């Protein structure tokens, strides 16, 4: 890039690989591309697309990023928002070793939560990873005992319902687990966990993130909320403000009275879940597997007898172990909370998303890329102000300013119900040119797309909502039929700025 060139338009290419994020941003001065940024590249676990296979997409990335007359693709910035498979799977070192190997990457941008030297981040990550592994243990045990439960409840009027519900539950659980890529771990123990030689446990997403850090080498930047990216790292004409992930201490400090007991940021609710996690690790250990020490037992070790011993005691033989009362056994009930735990964990990791607001200096227009940030993160944005130099003075930008000026909103978390907040979020996006991009595929998860959110987005964007891979919302419709709220003139402008390709949708912000 040359220092004199100044950005006056951005092409945002949303790839259509399926359920997952992959965005290529090309910054232009007139017809000259002067800066490029790739935000995430991933897909839902165990899925692929026939229409837009990832090999073709990576090929397209290479072609697009290789300057004329050269042979290697050049990317100025790679952004990895957070550690979920549908955002970073294609960086995996052994599954996709070739994909980004030959890229020349200028900088790698990550959230402070990935910083190996940050104490708070270390703590959060070890807790999140423990949680993911515990979940996987619960899921594999529930999967294994599905048949047993069905048998025990057979003949009861509720039996069929329980069996069906268990299947749905396990499917959902495995879906959420797919975010971490842990379902694929080789089963080498009863509880299904793969242990590294040093006793640590790893998941595929962790390995992907490690590869990204490797790609970045000494050109990695970790960003804190409330900061603005140093202008020396950027071409003229744009600013990049960092909105999230929040520091939990900061949240607590600035909002003492808010009392959001229900969506505490980054917290795996200790009172609810620590004992549960401990129980799972304890279970693994009791089976003679390697694992954490047995924690959380409610009484001393000399209290109680094992099931085998109990089965021969008359009282237990006559109650718990009675065959005709097998339907009353409770082997797995304590694991059912795994569902809620999974959601909590999922939300916590989503909230570690690096949230970027990219501002075009001249027009003040903002492109908002929140990753999968959920409620807690959104709320925290309003605790900050961003100082920007204007002429000789300094002006402050609030989160409200940035939201008011947002013209392109990458919809958080694929359009789920809890990742776009209303009053302090979406309702503040009042710019007349607002468009939304949703990377999502139909029937991937229950509740995505969240219908009421979609309705409201369509109203605010006057129909200009682009969905990457959902057959229920084909982008061709936007080209063929004018959305009712859009004027003929607006529609023509929109069509000029939108390119629909088999592999991607590309929208130009001018």
């Amino acid at each position, binding site marked *: 890039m040359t220092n004199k060139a100044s950005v006056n338009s951005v092409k945002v290419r949303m790839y259509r690989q399926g359920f997952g994020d992959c965005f290529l941003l090309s910054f232009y001065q007139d017809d000259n591309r002067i800066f490029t940024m790739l935000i995430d590249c991933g897909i839902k676990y165990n899925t692929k697309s026939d229409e837009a296979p990832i090999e073709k997409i990576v090929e397209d990335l290479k072609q697009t990023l290789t300057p004329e007359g050269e042979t290697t693709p050049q990317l100025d910035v790679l952004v990895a928002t957070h550690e979920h498979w549908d955002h970073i799977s294609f960086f995996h070192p052994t599954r996709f070793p070739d994909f980004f190997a030959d890229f020349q990457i200028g900088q790698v941008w990550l959230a402070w939560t990935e910083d190996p030297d940050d104490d708070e981040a270390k703590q959060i990550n070890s807790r999140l990873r423990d949680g993911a592994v515990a979940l996987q243990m619960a899921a594999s045990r529930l999967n294994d005992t599905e048949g047993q439960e069905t048998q025990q*409840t057979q*003949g*009861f*009027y*509720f039996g069929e*319902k*329980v069996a069906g*519900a268990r299947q749905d539950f396990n499917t*959902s659980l495995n879906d959420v687990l797919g975010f971490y890529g842990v379902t694929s771990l080789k089963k080498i123990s009863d509880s299904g966990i793969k242990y590294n030689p040093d006793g640590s446990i790893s998941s595929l997403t962790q390995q992907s993130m490690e590869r990204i850090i490797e790609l970045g080498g000494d050109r990695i930047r970790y960003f804190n909320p409330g900061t603005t990216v140093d202008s020396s790292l950027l071409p003229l004409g744009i600013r990049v403000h960092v909105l999230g992930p929040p520091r939990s201490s900061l949240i607590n400090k600035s909002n003492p*009275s*808010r009392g959001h007991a229900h*969506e505490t940021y980054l917290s795996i*609710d*200790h*009172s*609810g*879940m*620590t*004992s*549960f996690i401990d*129980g799972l690790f304890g279970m693994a250990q*009791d089976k003679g597997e390697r694992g954490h020490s047995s924690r*959380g*037992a*409610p*009484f001393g070790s000399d*209290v*109680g*007898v*094992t*099931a085998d*011993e*109990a089965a021969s*005691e008359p009282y*237990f033989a006559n109650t*718990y172990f009675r065959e005709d009362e097998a339907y*009353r*056994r*409770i082997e*797995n*009930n*304590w694991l*059912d*909370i795994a*569902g*809620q*735990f*999974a959601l*909590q964990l999922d*939300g916590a990791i989503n909230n570690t998303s690096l949230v970027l607001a990219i501002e075009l200096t001249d027009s003040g227009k903002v492109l908002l890329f929140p990753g999968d940030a959920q*409620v807690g993160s959104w709320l925290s944005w309003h605790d900050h102000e961003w100082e920007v130099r204007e002429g000789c003075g300094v002006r402050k930008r609030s989160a409200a300013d940035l939201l008011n000026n947002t013209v392109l909103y990458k919809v958080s978390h694929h359009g*789920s119900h*809890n990742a776009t*907040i*209303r*009053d*302090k979020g979406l309702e503040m996006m009042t710019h007349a040119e607002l468009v939304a991009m949703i990377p999502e595929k139909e029937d991937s*998860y*229950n*509740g995505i797309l969240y219908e009421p959110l979609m309705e409201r987005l369509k109203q605010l964007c006057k129909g200009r909502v682009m969905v990457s891979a959902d057959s229920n919302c084909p982008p061709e419709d936007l080209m063929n039929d004018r959305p009712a709220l859009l004027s003929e003139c607006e529609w023509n402008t929109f069509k000029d700025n939108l390119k629909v390709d088999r592999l991607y949708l590309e929208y130009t912000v001018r």
Partner: protein
Amino acid sequence: MTSNIAPPVVRKLRGYAIDPSLSTALLTMNVNELVYRVEWEELDSRPGSSQGSFPAGEYLEIVDYDPATGQFYEAVDLDHPHLLAQDGHAPSVSNPQFHQQMVYAVVMTTIKNFEQALGRKVQWAENIRYSEQQDGEERSEVIFEFVPRLRIYPHGLRQANAFYDPNKKALLFGYFSASPADPRLQLPAETVFTCLSHDIIAHETTHALLDGFHRRYIDATHPDTRAFHEAFADIVALFQHFSFPDVLKHQIAQTRGDLKQQNLLGQLAQQFGKAVGGYGSLRDAIGGYDKDNNWRPHTPDPKAYRTVMDFHTRGSILVAAVFDAFLSIYQHRVRRVMRIATGGTGLLPEGELHPDLVDEMAETAAKTAGDVLRICIRALDYCPPMDITFGDYLRAIITADFDMVAEDSRGYRVAFVEAFQKWGISVVGIKSMAVEDLLHELHPDKLSSDQQKQLGAFLRKLKESVGYLTDRKQIYEKTKSFIRGRLGLHKRIEAKFVASGKEDNFAELTGLMFPGAQEATEKQGLEFAYLTTQTASYAVGNVWLANRVTPDGRIVNHVVVTLIQKRGIRFDVTSNSVTVREDGFFVPDKTPRHKRGAHHIIFRGGCTLIFDLNTMRLRYSIKKDIDDRERMIRQFKYEQGMLGGDSDTYFASATMNALAGPFAFMHSHTAGSEAQDDQ
């Protein structure tokens, strides 16, 4: 031999008065233990021992299995001579046998409160199984089975949660490491056991008991139904707790100046729920702490009942209303004590209150709480068998209390009506919220006096053969035999009322439908001639005897009968979900799922009939019409989430409900943690 010594009347068992995690808080320090006086029963004896027993009695069996650790904890021997001599184990967090003792004491206390209020033995919900399908049978037979004992697992879960599992007929209690918002309340990383909280045990036991009375209350057919299950369980826990005078004394002595505002009882109520997060939520309705950390009761929001649809918040409205009623009754009663103590001025002197005065006030509060508890429980007999609303419950409370105390000299009924009104709880289909209008119509005149006498004669026979039984299984079997069979109640109702040519009267009385021949019946979505019927089929749900002695010495001698019909209903919904209308019917048990249509519900109607054996007259019919269009559409909209409420995401609530029943995830610490927005 000493076998002619009568068994004791009560078994005294020590227990926590309040959650042990609260006992470190100074405020409640001297009241954390009390002795539960549980009606004596013979427990299952230990083999090879002349004295010892297992914690398994008439109503329950405690199985202390902890699946997370794979450990079974030894069953407590409540009949060990050493324990008999010292009122059981000393309260202790680290002794699982004490935990079993605590659960036993509270569950039994709750059961006995119900039996006392209702005047009969309680039963658990039946098991329902399908028989093996025989060749040529259209469908397998449904078998109902008596469930003698509620199964109780004091350490069955590892979470801040406890629940009643209606499939297993079991209570599961959890334990967890505590880290509450206010660290002063608990030592860090202390293990909290939900099975040591009186309120949680009473709450979950109440779910089980309510399921035993009204199996259909589990169905979420109205924004009020699940909220009612929760609120009712909370009401029982709260007022049972307040009925121990010792619990209140300390508070009354300490906050003497506040008595006029009556804050302390509400504050105490809320405190009970504090240690285990989820349970405090319902109580939050009563009040909260302001920014100066003073407790203030909430001002009722009369709009909330109409606008708030999620069942937790709705439930809290009912709890708050009943609590309000309790406060005004107490206020009225304590005023006299105050006047006596202050020589008529009502102004208390400086300094500490006289201990006798504290005792008297605490007794008054405890008695009032006991009264409210019994009123609330007794009302169950006057509730419709399905689709209950808060308004139905208010009418039940008023009518039940009218039958107990004809003259409302203490103003209880007025207090309830005013409190419900204040909280905006409305009642559908009455002229006004006056007590007279809320009372169910006495002696509905749809049956001839001959018919009433015939029915009465039959029910008297039932009473004679069931009324004196003490074995719950015999009561169950005998009652069933009176319902079924060639000469049973079911058949009799049909012969006397349905086939008598006066079925219109009977239908109007009961809210049932009898459209005539098979074709006409099935067209209406009702099954024809299933089991013993020759008409539209219907079920006799419950037959209960209610034997109560009123405060003025009369004997109430009622039989409560519930009748239920079900039909499948299809709906036509416009594409934008604005209009919904009924679009034909189907017979649920004969229509496979894929033939029911995209939009359908299973709809139930029927009634609770209360028959007075003293006068041989039908006293009340409390009905939910099976042909009520408005109710159909409302249920459909509610089930579709069109009335608002919780939205499903990854784990659909239907899935969670089917796994372990609707209660499993209600109190869980993390339930509903997926917040929508802060606004």
